[in-house]
């Protein structure tokens, strides 16, 4: 009896250990949680639509700006001169069009008296059309010059916070090159990098608990699962042949798949910054 009790107690503990070990294995390999998550936000990189010197900088680093607020002003003098030039060109083209119209109407009146050939009359008509087209082109050029002048005042496209500002008054900015980064307000979301072994237990709409490294906690929902990541083991050589890296078969590392999570609501007083590290735990009973 004593021997049976000893064997029974030991086997009971061993059996419990097998169950516990199985749970640990599943917890680390298949349960949908990860410590590899990041806070992310929609970032707008503001680029000027015209080139020139920055004459006025209206914002400072990490400043909250509203949609439409002035960020900076580019030297306007060149663009004002362009408007004057385009205006004068427009006046010139209008005169040319009026002259062509006048000539055509005069010669059209003469055509009944057989003093001008049909061919010459047609030439005047075409000249009038051409002068009209030139006038419309000059109008468009003036409109473009006005747009350029308007675009010397760069405004915030959305409400957000200016980030990592290195722009100063006097800097020369080029058309299309980003100079101000704007972290859009209330656009925070989370991206979790889940091992591929856990992916089968993740689905869109699943509830998520997100904990910050600093201790705060948030709730959210799975919004999307990435459908592809880059294959780092394959590239091409100069002959476009695949360059496949040798792999060690002893250890197979699980790939990490990005999963986006929208946040339900942020706790009041919680400071969030894009790039912060988070842990993510997804509900599995759904």
């Amino acid at each position, binding site marked *: 009896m004593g*021997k049976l009790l000893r*064997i029974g*107690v*030991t086997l009971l503990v061993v059996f419990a250990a097998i169950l*516990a*070990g199985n*749970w*640990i294995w599943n*917890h680390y390999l298949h349960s949908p949680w990860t410590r590899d998550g990041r806070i992310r936000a929609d970032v707008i990189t503001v680029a000027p639509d015209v080139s020139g010197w920055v004459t006025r900088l209206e914002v400072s680093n990490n400043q909250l700006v509203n949609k439409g607020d002035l960020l900076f002003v580019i030297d306007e003098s060149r663009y004002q001169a362009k408007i004057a030039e385009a205006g004068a060109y427009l006046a010139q083209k209008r005169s040319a069009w009026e002259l062509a119209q006048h000539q055509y109407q005069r010669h059209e009146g003469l055509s009944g008296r057989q003093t001008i050939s049909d061919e010459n009359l047609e030439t005047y008509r075409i000249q009038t059309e051409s002068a009209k087209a030139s006038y419309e082109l000059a109008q468009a050029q003036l409109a473009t010059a006005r747009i350029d002048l308007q675009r010397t005042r760069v405004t915030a496209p959305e409400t957000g916070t200016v980030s990592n500002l290195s722009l100063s008054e006097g800097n020369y900015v080029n058309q299309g090159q980003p100079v101000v980064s704007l972290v859009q307000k209330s656009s925070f979301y989370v991206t979790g990098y889940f091992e591929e072994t856990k992916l089968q237990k993740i689905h869109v709409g699943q509830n998520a608990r997100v904990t910050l490294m600093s201790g705060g906690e948030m709730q959210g929902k799975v919004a999307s699962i990435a459908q592809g990541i880059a294959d780092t083991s394959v590239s091409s050589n100069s002959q476009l042949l695949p360059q496949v890296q040798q792999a060690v078969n002893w250890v197979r590392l699980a790939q990490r798949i990005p999963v986006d999570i929208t946040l339900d609501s942020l706790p009041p007083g919680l400071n969030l910054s894009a790039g912060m590290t988070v842990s993510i*735990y997804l509900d599995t009973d759904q």
Partner: protein
Amino acid sequence: MLFSPLVVLGPLAFLMTMATRWVLHRLNWRRYIWKDAWFDVGIFVCYLALTIYWVGD
């Protein structure tokens, strides 16, 4: 946690196993154990699972 939880939870489970072993020894209950090593490893794995479940998050 700033580092891998197992770095803390593994030693914690080991300490709990040692404490259990000591208590059983003091109570003279180890005589009810058939294979000491099987029992100790089993207890360690159970404690490890418990610590991961309770404080692993």
